């Protein structure tokens, strides 16, 4: 039977841990709300830019930019967005599993795989792997990632794609389904998959300043950047949601442990008192 004092110390330590996890849960909840707002704010840009690209492609069906042309996939790149900090349940692990599965698929098809990592958890994980090349990394974007932090990293991959050293580019990040569930997805960034190709309107063209090629290049680049940015923002929302849930269960578990320990403590205290009384009684009887 552990001593009464030891149990009391243990209860106190559990209580302080519980306070910390409770605070983390609440912080994550408020950050999640803000991240969700930012997630919504990124949507108009992506919609508008997609519309412009759609118009451009309608206006110039024969203009082929490398970002739009399918090539034999000999080398594949992945941009993996993970979190910077842990204590977020299985969020990162699930993401890495999905990445590894996608990577294995491509490797079996004989394609070379290289990575671009956003977030320090990803950097730590894939460093241990060793058999893939990591081309670019960026970490510590914080809770409010900015497009300017991502431009350089994305450019590394875009340049390789343009040089023909990459034939496919994928983005791996978590999708915010709801507070309780986040799902890792692998999405193709390059070549750009065009949607709603069917609604070809009457033929018209823009006036271009300077040239159509340069414009398309700039707009496609911004489109990719905005997609990566969107992924990064969504990943923050996922991180916060996952952390909130993880911390909530940690708080609940700490509560359960404290309850159990409290019972043991009460029993131990009672046993000690009973022992003392019986000793006194026994001593008195002997006199």
């Amino acid at each position, binding site marked *: 039977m552990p001593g009464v004092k030891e149990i009391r110390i243990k209860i106190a330590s559990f209580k302080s841990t519980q306070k910390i996890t409770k605070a983390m849960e609440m912080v994550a909840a408020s950050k999640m709300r803000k991240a969700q707002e*930012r997630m919504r*704010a*990124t949507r*108009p*840009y992506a919609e*508008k*830019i997609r*519309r*412009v690209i759609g*118009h*451009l492609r309608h*206006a110039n069906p024969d203009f082929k930019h490398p970002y739009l042309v399918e090539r034999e996939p000999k080398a594949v790149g992945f941009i993996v967005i993970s979190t910077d900090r842990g204590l977020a349940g299985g969020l990162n692990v699930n993401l890495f599993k999905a990445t590894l599965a996608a990577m294995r698929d491509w490797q079996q098809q004989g394609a070379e795989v290289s990575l671009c990592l956003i977030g320090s958890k990803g950097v730590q994980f894939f460093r241990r792997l060793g058999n893939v090349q990591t081309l670019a990394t960026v970490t510590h974007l914080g809770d409010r990632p*900015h*497009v*300017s932090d991502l431009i350089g990293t994305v450019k590394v991959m875009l340049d390789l794609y343009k040089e023909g050293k990459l034939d496919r580019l994928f983005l791996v990040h978590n999708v915010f389904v709801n507070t309780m569930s986040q799902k890792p997805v692998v999405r193709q960034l390059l070549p750009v998959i065009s949607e709603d190709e069917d609604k070809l309107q009457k033929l*018209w*063209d*823009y*006036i*271009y*300043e*300077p040239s*159509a090629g*340069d*414009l398309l290049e*700039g*707009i496609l680049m*911004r489109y990719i*950047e*905005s997609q990566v*940015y969107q992924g990064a923002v969504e990943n923050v929302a996922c991180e916060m949601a996952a952390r909130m849930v993880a911390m909530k269960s940690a708080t609940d578990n700490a509560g359960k442990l404290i309850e159990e320990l409290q019972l043991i403590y009460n029993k131990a205290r009672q046993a000690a008192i009973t022992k003392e009384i019986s000793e006194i009684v026994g001593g008195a009887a002997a006199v």
Partner: protein
Amino acid sequence: MATTVHVDIVSAEGEIFSGEASMVFAPAVMGEIGIAPRHAPLLTTLKPGEVRVQTPAGEEHFFFVSGGAIEIQPHLVTVLADTALRAHDLDEAAALQAKQRAEEALRDRGDKVEVAEAQAELARAVAQIRAIEKLRKIKG
């Protein structure tokens, strides 16, 4: 008769403006352009500067953009801003500081990339200051 054009100004980090306008001015790469309703389709990139939107009610809105693209269709103008903030949100002191920093960097003359970056920053800072000055005149 439609005498207005719908304007959307968006940046990757959020929507900035959406509404009707009777006239839009934007700093295109080839020079400032004015867009009236039913303008011919035009696509061009923007340099750092201010986008002015005149509403049918006669109000004028200023938005600072540090580059981007503009798509014009007869009844629709879309500004894809790289980073755009409301002009009155701009911190004049920060703009001046940025200009000083950029000038210092220019004087140092590092490699070509640094010079190009500094020049871009200088252009941005000058445009920000001009936007603020214009706003002041209107208010004052």
